[in-house]
């Protein structure tokens, strides 16, 4: 099917985008189109019928990826760039791995970081990574700019903190400890399918003792969330198997998966437990 008719407007700069958004606000139902890998299927199926489509795909200033002390990802950074960024290792490896799991190989050619955050699918990998790393999402409107912690940005399935006239311009990931390690894993029906459960872990240790742990869970609740109790159990441990077990059980208890895709709640909890155990066991060698 083809989308219902809409007015089309292409913008070339952030300022033009914000102008167009502000103007469209009066007429309602305008959408920003970036890579289109989630939006175009919804347009084609007429699940959304915007009056106006503002095409931001060509705003070169938003297509960047910069790593120094912190990591800055532009809203139009394509998934393949994160996937192929070999500088993203150690503490950043989980982010790269998360990007490599988004959609399908040809979808990662076009799909954008900001698009994935704005779409806010509860099972999406990059929102999970943003929450786990404690990223701040940068929003702009004609009225100004603000930063929202990823944990507050995702409000529920396809619901975010974006206000009227606001657009995502990028995100800042604070620097993890340089000797940190990280891992990402998910369970899905096919290698290329949506995850039924996803786990993102970032750790740093000193002399074999975990100083800081972040454990994020995706696809098992209305929005990605950290498993705070599991993090607490890991900190101060030596990642010994009893600590790993306790954290895995705590993470499984912390999530609220729905029955979906014929998979019941308990099974998805078991997946979380297995994924946490697997990622932590995989990292244990690097920590000791």
């Amino acid at each position, binding site marked *: *099917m*083809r*989308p*219902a*008719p*809409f*007015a*089309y407007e*292409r913008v070339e700069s952030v300022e033009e985008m914000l102008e167009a958004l502000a103007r469209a606000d009066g007429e309602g139902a305008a959408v920003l*189109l970036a890579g*289109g*890998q989630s939006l*175009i*299927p919804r*347009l*084609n*199926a007429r699940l959304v019928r915007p009056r106006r*489509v503002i*095409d931001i*795909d*060509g705003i070169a200033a938003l297509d960047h990826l910069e790593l120094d002390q912190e990591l800055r990802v532009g809203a139009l950074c394509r998934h*393949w760039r994160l996937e192929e960024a070999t500088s993203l290792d150690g503490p950043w490896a989980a982010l790269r791995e998360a990007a490599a799991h988004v*959609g*399908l*190989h*040809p*979808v990662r*050619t*076009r799909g954008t970081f900001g698009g994935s955050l704005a779409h806010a699918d509860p099972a999406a990998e990059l929102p999970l990574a943003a929450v786990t790393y404690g990223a701040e999402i940068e929003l702009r409107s004609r009225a100004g700019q603000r930063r929202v912690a990823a944990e507050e940005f995702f409000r529920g399935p396809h619901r975010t903190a974006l206000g009227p006239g606001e657009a995502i311009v990028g995100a800042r990931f604070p620097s993890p400890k340089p000797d940190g390690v990280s891992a990402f894993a998910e369970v899905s029906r*096919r*290698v*290329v399918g949506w995850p039924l459960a996803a786990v993102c872990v970032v750790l740093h240790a000193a002399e074999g003792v975990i100083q800081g742990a972040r454990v994020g869970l995706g696809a098992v609740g209305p929005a990605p969330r950290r498993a705070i109790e599991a993090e607490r159990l890991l900190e101060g441990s030596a990642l010994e198997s009893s600590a790993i077990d306790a954290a895995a059980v705590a993470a499984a208890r912390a999530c609220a998966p729905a029955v979906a895709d014929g998979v019941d709640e308990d099974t998805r909890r078991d997946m979380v437990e297995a994924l946490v155990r697997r990622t932590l066991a995989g990292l244990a060698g690097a920590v000791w």
Partner: protein
Amino acid sequence: MDVLRTEFTLNDMPIEVTLPVRATLADAIRSTGATGTRVGCEEGICGSCTVLLDGRPARACLMLAAQARGREIRTVEGLAAGGRLHPVQESFRRHRALQCGYCTPGFMMLAVGLLEREPNASPERVRAVLASNLCRCTGYAPIVDAVLAAQQALAGEVI
């Protein structure tokens, strides 16, 4: 109805199309008479519309025609050269990697995009990338065989 003129490169030829704004890149390509690019699901799942966008595989159904402005698109029509099939095409033929053929151009572009960028891709990597597209006929094994054999053939050509 709103129409828009868009210029892009299709198989090394400059192309200009004037289409309704809601037309997809797949519509734009097919409107030029290059109908090798197939349209199946129109929601990004099947991959029969896969083309190369500046050298990387992309779904032509998940892009507005207007978004192709200034980009370089390659389709199955651009594979054969000088009356000779591309090694990937030749390999598909030899390994019987197609039956009805509907998925074939999409699979070929997916494979060409991978093998050009990653000539040394491992068999696991080849399989993982090929999992992006659907085939209802072959059961996939002949497609995987064809692409792995084409990889060998291409490596031989370079030497």
